[in-house]
C-alpha cells in the first residue's frame, strides 16, 4: 500500500533538521513513495507481470548562496545521515551563485485544493488480464494483424515537498494507463501502430475494445506505403503529434533557454509569434488533469497562464533561479508546463482537409530533429496523402523540414481538441513545409 503523509513528513523533517544542524542556511526536500503494477499480454497470452515499490528522497542544501544536492532511494536514517553530511560537505566547497535561493515566501502555495487526482480503486491483476484479453481479442479480428501486444499499468503516488522556510505540502495522485500495439502484414512487409489511454480515474479509462480496434485499424491503414517525390506542400499534423509543436514552444520559452540566450524565441516577448487567431494556455487546476498540480517542484503556487494571446507571446515559463537572472518572479513553472493546450480552432477536421487540393497528413514522426537554438526542424515522417479531402494512400520514408519561426506563423487549427494527454493540440495544418522523398 502507498505510505501516508505522516511517514513522508517525518523523513522530510528529519532531512531539514539534520541539514540545518550541520550548517545549512536553507534546505529543500522532496520525499516520494510510488507503487506501480503492470501486466502485459502478447498474442493473447500473459507476457509480463511487474510490481514496483519505490521510495525516493531529493535534498538540496544551501549555505548562503552555495548549493548542492543528493538523491537516494534508501530512506533509512543511517543512510540519510551519511548522505546529508556528504551534501553539506559538497555545498561548502561549491562556488556561490547569487541567484541560488529558495523561492520567495509570498509566492508559496498556501492551500492545497483537491483537484481530484487520486482514485484509490485498486484494479486487481485478474481484472487487468480480462481487460487485456478484450483489447487483443478486438485488435486481432482482421487476419492482416499478425501480432498484438497490450499492457495495463496502475500507478499510485504520494509525496511531500518541504523547505526550511516552513513550506510543507503534498498529496496523492494516481494514474491508470493502457495501450495496444498492433502489427499488420501484407506481402511480407509489416507496419506497426498503437493506441494509448491514460487517466487519473479507472472509471474514465477508454473501453478495451476501443483501444484494440483503433490500434488495429491504424496498423492496417498504414500497409503498402509509398515514397513520394520531394516537394513543398502543406502538412497536416495528426492530434497524436500536433502536441509536439507545443512541447517545442515550451522548451523555447523556458526561462533557462531565454536567460542563457539559447532560444529561437529570445527577445520575442510581446511579439507576434503565431497567427492572431491563436491562444495557448497552461492550466494547472483542471480537475482530473494529467498535468494538474497545486504547486510546482519548488512549492510555488501555480495558476492558469496565457502563454500566447491572439498570437502574441505573453509569458515565459519561470522558476526561481532563472527568474532571478531575468529579473522576473517565478510563475510556478519549475518543472515545466502543466496542462498545456491550444485553445480550440474553428475549422472542422473535414473542412481543414478540404482547404486545399492536396496535403500531406502526418501520423508519426521519428527522430529528434528540432533545434531550439536556431529553430531548425527536420524529422522522419509517415502518414497519408490527402487529395480532395480524402486520405488516399499511406506514405513513409520521407522527412519534413522547416524552421519553427515560420512554421508557428503558418498554423491553422481544427476544432477537434481533446484533453487526452497533459499537452494537447487539435489537428493542425502548417503551410509550405519541405518534404524530402525520392
Amino acid at each position: 500500500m502507498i505510505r501516508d503523509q505522516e511517514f513522508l513528513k517525518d523523513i522530510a523533517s528529519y532531512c531539514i533538521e539534520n541539514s540545518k544542524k550541520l550548517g545549512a542556511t536553507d534546505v529543500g526536500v522532496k520525499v516520494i513513495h510510488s507503487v506501480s503494477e503492470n501486466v502485459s499480454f502478447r498474442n493473447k497470452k500473459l507476457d509480463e507481470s511487474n510490481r514496483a515499490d519505490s521510495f525516493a528522497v531529493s535534498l538540496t542544501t544551501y549555505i548562503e548562496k552555495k548549493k548542492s544536492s543528493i538523491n537516494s532511494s534508501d530512506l533509512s536514517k543511517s543512510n540519510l545521515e551519511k548522505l546529508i553530511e556528504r551534501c553539506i560537505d559538497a555545498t561548502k566547497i561549491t562556488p556561490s551563485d547569487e541567484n541560488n535561493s529558495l523561492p520567495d515566501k509570498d509566492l508559496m502555495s498556501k492551500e492545497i485544493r483537491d483537484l481530484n487526482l487520486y482514485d484509490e480503486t485498486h484494479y486487481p491483476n485478474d481484472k487487468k488480464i480480462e481487460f487485456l484479453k478484450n483489447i487483443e481479442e478486438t485488435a486481432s479480428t482482421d487476419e492482416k494483424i499478425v501480432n498484438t501486444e497490450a499492457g495495463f499499468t496502475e500507478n499510485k503516488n504520494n509525496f511531500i515537498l518541504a523547505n526550511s522556510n516552513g513550506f510543507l505540502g503534498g498529496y496523492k495522485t494516481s494514474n491508470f494507463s493502457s495501450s495496444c500495439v498492433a502489427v499488420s502484414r501484407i506481402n511480407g512487409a509489416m507496419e506497426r501502430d498503437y493506441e494509448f489511454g491514460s487517466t487519473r480515474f479507472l472509471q474514465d479509462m477508454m473501453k478495451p475494445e476501443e483501444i484494440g480496434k483503433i490500434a488495429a485499424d491504424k496498423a492496417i491503414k498504414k500497409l503498402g506505403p509509398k515514397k513520394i517525390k520531394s516537394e513543398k506542400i502543406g502538412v497536416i499534423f495528426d492530434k497524436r503529434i500536433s502536441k509536439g509543436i507545443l512541447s517545442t514552444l515550451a522548451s523555447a520559452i523556458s526561462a533557462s533557454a531565454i536567460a542563457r540566450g539559447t532560444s529561437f524565441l529570445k527577445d520575442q516577448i510581446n511579439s507576434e509569434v503565431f497567427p492572431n487567431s491563436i491562444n495557448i494556455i497552461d492550466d494547472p487546476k483542471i480537475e482530473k488533469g494529467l498535468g494538474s498540480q497545486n504547486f510546482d517542484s519548488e512549492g510555488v503556487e501555480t495558476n492558469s497562464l496565457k502563454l500566447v494571446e491572439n498570437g502574441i507571446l505573453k509569458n515565459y515559463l519561470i522558476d526561481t533561479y532563472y527568474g532571478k537572472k531575468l529579473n522576473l518572479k517565478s510563475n510556478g513553472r519549475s518543472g515545466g508546463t502543466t496542462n498545456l493546450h491550444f485553445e480550440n480552432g474553428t475549422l472542422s477536421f473535414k473542412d481543414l482537409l478540404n482547404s486545399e487540393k492536396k496535403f500531406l497528413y502526418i501520423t508519426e514522426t521519428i527522430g529528434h530533429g528540432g533545434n531550439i537554438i536556431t529553430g531548425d526542424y527536420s524529422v522522419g515522417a509517415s502518414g497519408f496523402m490527402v487529395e480532395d479531402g480524402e486520405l488516399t494512400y499511406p506514405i513513409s520514408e520521407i522527412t519534413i523540414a522547416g524552421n519553427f519561426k515560420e512554421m508557428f506563423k503558418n498554423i491553422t487549427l481544427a476544432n477537434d481538441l481533446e484533453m487526452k494527454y497533459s499537452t494537447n493540440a487539435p489537428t493542425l495544418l502548417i503551410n509550405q513545409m519541405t518534404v524530402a522523398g525520392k
Partner: protein
Amino acid sequence: MSNFFKETDIDTSQAEAIVTETLKNCDDGELYLENHKSESIVLDDNKIKSSTYNSDQGYGFRAVTGEVVAYSHSNDISKESLRKSSDNLKDTLKSKKGTYNHEIPKTNNKYYKNINPIESKTFDSKIDLLNSVNNYLRSKGSIVNQVTANFLGEHKSIEIIRSDNQVLKDDRPLVRFNVSVVLEKDGKKETGVYGVGGRQSYDDYLKDGSWKDVCDEAFRIANVNLESKPAPAGEMKVVLGPGWPAILIHEAIGHGLEGDFNRKKTSAFHNLMGQQVASEGVTIVDDGTLHQRRGSLTIDDEGTPTENTVLIENGILKNYMQDRLNARLMGTKSTGSGRRESYKHVVLPRMRNTMMLSGKYSQDEMISSVDKGIFAVSFGGGQVDITSGKFVFNCTEAYEINNGKIGSPIKGATLIGDGPSILKEVSLVGNDMKLDPGIGTCGKAGQGVPVGVAQPSILINKMTVGGTKL
C-alpha cells in the same frame, strides 16, 4: 564490492533459500541486487549550475517460465519485502511449470578495473577543471556565447543470486565528460557538442591537457555550423565519416537484430537469417569485450559472460543478439546481451559496442566518386521503427559534395532510410575504422543503457536527406 545484506534483517543464505524456493518450478530467474552511486557536476552560463550525488540501491526479483516474465522490484532489501515479491512471482506463474536451466558459463576475463571514478578525483579538482574549460573556451573570442561542461560519473555494483546458490558479481565504473558551446556571429547562433568517456577514471580521458581537445572539437563543430547553408532535400549519395556516424549501424540494423523482436517476428529482419542483407565486404559485430569501452561488460545483467558476436559476415546475416529468455525460446544460447538499466527494469537483449569492420577503400576515393551528395561527419542521435525498418539519424556536421569535392557545410538535417535495404546500398567500405569517443546511450522500452559504436568511412549509394532546399 557491496555487501547487500549488511544492516538488513536477512543474510545471503536466507536470501538464497527464498530464491531457490521461489524459482523451483520456473525455467529461469534470479535475484538481482544493485548498488548504484553517481554524480553530476554541471557548469553553465559561467557558474557551477548544479552538483548532485545519487545513491540508489535495490533488488529486482525475476521468475521466468515459458514466455512469461514475472518481476518485482523494491528499494527495501528485507525479509518481508523479499517474501512479498516471492509471493507475487509465484502467484503470477502459479499455473505454469518449468525446468530450471542452471547453465551459466564462467569467465575469468575482466574488461575494466573496480575503481570508483567519483572518489578517484577530488571534488575541488573537478570544479577547477570545469572553470578551466569555461575560461579556455571563452578566451577564444567574443563569438563564444555560452559554455556548458559537465562531469557524469558512476559506480555500479551488481550481484546475481541464482536458484542453485550460484552468485555472480560485477563492479562497473563509468564516466562521461561533455562540453557544449554556443557561438554567435552576425546574429546567427550555432552549437557544437563533444564528449569523451568509458569505464575508467576521469583523468584517463582528461590528463595532460587532453580536455582542451574536447573543447577544441566542440568549438570547431559550432564554428563550421556558423557557415552552414540550408541542407538539400531528396535522395542522393551519402559518405559517412568514421567513428560516431556508426549510429547508422546501430539504428538501421542493430535494433532489428535484437533477439526479442525476432522471436516475436516483429522485426523487419525476422525471416532473413542466413540471407544476404548487406553488400559483400560488410561485416558487423557486436562486441562486449573491448577493454574499458562504454558498451563493454564483463558479465551481462543475467550473469552471462559477454562475447564478440558476429551479426553480419561479408553481407550474410549470421546471428541475433540474445538474452537467456529469447535464446531459450529460439533454441540457441545467450550471446551475453541481456541488459537492464537498473534493478527497476526487466532484462532485454541489447547492443554493447556495435561495429562495422574496415574494408579497403580510402575516404578520398569515396568522396571523389560522388558527383552530387553529402559528406556527414558528426551526428546527434537516431531512432528506428523496428517493424517497418525505417530509421533516421540527425547530422550535426555535414558538407555538400559537388563533382567529387567537399563543398560548403550544411545545416543539421535528418537522414531517413530503410534498415533491411540500406546496407545493400553500401558500395564502398573504408579502411579507417574508428571507435566513437564513448558518449552513447541507447534507449529501448524506456530503458537507457551505455553503448558504443564504430565504423570506417562508408559510401551509401542512395539515401533521403531531409533538408529544406529543393
